[in-house]
């Protein structure tokens, strides 16, 4: 009889720090200690606390170990699993004031306490490669309920009543989308899952696919029943190898158990799913480009209307839902629309998953009820900014979103509010920036990304974004004028109004939002030829303070281009014409004699 289970995270984050090797060693060690009949190792999806990986939880105690190394395994098995003594040194500790406090279980950490896990509720709890574990936590019960007790119209009504909106970014009401597709009375329709998560720094969908793939399959079958489709496609990035592997495994298992295929639950309903791998083009996350790509053509968007719900994949009515949207659906069916609508705000119901990244202590995945403030996410759950630095801005929505300055930290996050303050919900990437981040450089980074990823089909996006990037380059290299700022703004609105698809229409957002909230930083670059955050290299100057320099010669030896000269025990000098502004001199100076201007 199994008395103890060790759950080890097998998400991408922990896997890349060797968690699968740890799981293998753990199993060997358990056999060696004769515990094979009593202790079981379970490989799960992402727990969310990626910064602390590899992580594991030992149940039933719920002991939470972080940053485990393969060599810690024998000690954990002998001490904890055999003798019941928790290995203190590996237990996660949380900073409380100046003290580090031991946190015995995951649920008690500041990171988890205020989270509300709906889309992620099985991630880190079940083994995603075992369909029976999913069934044990009420998996496929929603599909059973829909097929045996409900009409397609009733399913759509529940979705509409729940208030669920698309989690891919635009926030279109899911029930309404289904209704549009259901109205078309044709024999062939499709359900497509958009798993082409491309925003830099976003990994919400990957974690759902890796941690709970069956929830996505179940939701797609429910959607198929509701709109009258018998075929589904999951368009997933080839750069997500673990997600692709688990999805295919899940599809095969579901077919084996008769949960995909013909006559599911004896209802006469047929549904099957196939995966399609994306080659990593950002534009393929745009729904019409995604459909074109599934059809086997180059991923370019098409004009809307006609909308996919009327004329989509292979010209047939198609609904396209994002991974996280789908992950909510089985629970809405089981627990009811009222339950879901009780969470969130008037404008946005339910919860949202955010991928926390950038200058934040707890890098990882969080799920919170909509209406939570940015301050709660960043400081209470995320643990704040490391190294005692100051919060400057948060970037949401990736290359389509904008930067939110500190004055909006207490704004409740929902679809409407984020748009009002010049950003957008996007798919849920949340990048935190501190005072060492240059906002002009951030805008330049995202523009650089969109210029690369523009498919080139329409002129405003293909040429407009490139011109915009050139203007930003001009500003960051110290050659900008105030007139450029106005021209840039004008061009932004031109691209927004004229680009063909969402990629182009939202590409200027990073520029517009930083211009709006951080105009003084642009002006410093243009007027004073100065980068206040000290990031833009062309505007930087390293200098040695003669009164602090002891003439130890370390900086001269560290300088890779020989730009520093001086006699021993006498102040040194930097030759500005040779300096490449790498900062090696400043990093190495023991006397803080080198400053950056």
């Amino acid at each position, binding site marked *: 009889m199994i008395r103890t289970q060790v759950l080890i995270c097998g998400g991408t984050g922990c896997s890349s720090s060797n968690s699968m090797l740890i799981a293998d060693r753990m199993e060997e060690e358990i056999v060696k200690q004769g515990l094979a009949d009593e202790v079981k190792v379970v490989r799960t999806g992402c727990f969310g606390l990626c910064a602390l990986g590899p992580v594991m939880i030992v149940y039933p105690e719920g002991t939470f170990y972080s940053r485990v190394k393969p060599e810690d395994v024998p000690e954990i098995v002998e001490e904890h699993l055999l003798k019941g003594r928790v290995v203190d040194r590996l237990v996660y500790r949380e900073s409380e004031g100046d003290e580090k406090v031991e946190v015995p279980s995951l649920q008690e950490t500041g990171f988890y306490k205020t989270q509300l896990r709906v889309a992620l509720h099985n991630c880190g709890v079940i083994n995603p490669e075992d369909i*029976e574990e999913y069934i044990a936590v009420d998996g496929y019960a929603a599909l059973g309920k829909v097929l045996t007790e409900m009409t397609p119209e009733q399913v759509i009504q529940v979705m509409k009543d729940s208030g669920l909106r698309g989690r891919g970014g635009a926030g279109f009401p899911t029930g309404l989308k289904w209704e549009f597709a259901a109205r078309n009375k044709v024999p062939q329709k499709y359900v497509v899952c958009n798993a082409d998560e491309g925003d830099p720094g976003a990994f919400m969908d990957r974690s759902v696919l890796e941690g709970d793939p069956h929830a996505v399959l179940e939701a797609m079958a429910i959607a198929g029943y509701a709109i009258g489709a018998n075929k589904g496609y999951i368009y997933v990035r080839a750069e997500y190898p673990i997600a692709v592997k688990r999805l295919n495994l899940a599809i095969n298992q579901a077919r084996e158990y008769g949960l995909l295929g013909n006559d599911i639950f004896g209802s006469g309903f047929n549904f099957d799913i196939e995966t399609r791998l994306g080659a990593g083009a950002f534009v393929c996350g745009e729904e019409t480009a995604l459909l074109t790509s599934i059809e086997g053509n180059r991923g370019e968007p098409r004009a809307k209307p006609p909308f996919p719900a009327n004329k989509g994949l292979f010209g047939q009515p198609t609904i396209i839902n994002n991974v996280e949207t789908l992950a909510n659906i089985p629970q809405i069916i089981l627990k009811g629309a009222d339950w879901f609508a009780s969470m969130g705000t008037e404008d946005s119901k339910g919860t949202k998953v955010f991928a926390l990244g950038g200058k934040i202590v707890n890098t990882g995945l969080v799920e919170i009820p909509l209406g939570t403030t940015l301050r709660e996410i960043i400081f209470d759950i995320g643990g704040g900014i490391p190294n005692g630095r100051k919060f400057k801005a948060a970037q949401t929505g990736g290359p389509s979103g904008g930067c939110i300055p500190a004055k909006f930290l207490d704004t409740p996050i929902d679809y409407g509010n984020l748009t009002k303050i010049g950003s957008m919900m996007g798919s849920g990437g949340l990048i935190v920036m501190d005072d060492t981040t240059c906002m002009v450089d951030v805008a330049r980074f995202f523009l650089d990304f969109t210029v690369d990823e523009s498919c080139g089909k329409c002129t405003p996006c293909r040429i407009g974004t490139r011109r915009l990037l050139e203007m930003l380059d001009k500003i960051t290299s110290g050659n900008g004028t105030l007139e450029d700022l106005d021209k840039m703004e004008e061009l932004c609105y031109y691209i927004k109004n004229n680009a063909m698809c969402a990629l182009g229409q939202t590409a200027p957002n990073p520029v517009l939002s930083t211009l709006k909230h951080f105009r003084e930083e642009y002006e410093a670059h243009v007027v004073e030829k100065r980068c206040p955050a000290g990031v833009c290299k062309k505007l930087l100057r390293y200098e040695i303070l003669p009164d602090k320099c002891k003439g130890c010669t370390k900086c001269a030896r560290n300088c890779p281009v020989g730009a520093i000269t001086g006699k021993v025990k006498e102040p040194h000098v930097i030759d500005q014409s040779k300096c490449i502004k790498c900062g090696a001199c400043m990093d190495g100076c023991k006397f803080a004699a080198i400053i950056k201007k």
Partner: protein
Amino acid sequence: MKSLEELAQIRERMKNKVALREANGEIRIVVGMATCGIAAGARPVLNALVESVVKEDLKNVTVTQTGCIGMCRLEPIVEVFAPDQDRVTYVKMTPDKVPEIIEKHIKGGHPVTKYTIGAVEN
């Protein structure tokens, strides 16, 4: 999958395996599993407890281990922590005492006094 019953069967069969991870037991049964405990035979006791809890489908009970309590001569020691009750310490435990404790104490709420430390020591 041709019927909801089939799905329900798999769910029933798998439920206990996953329920362990919820760790929301109101009653905690703690087995001393230090070297002294193991040497005195704590592992069969632990396994018997886990098996009975699963067999009786006691959802509010968690069975866990702990280290040495300090009274090695009385091992195997099993302690029961229930809400609104004093902690009860059973000593010199054996697997055949387990069913009685589960039946009378865990399910019935009445500690089996004859196996407790007070009775054995006096």
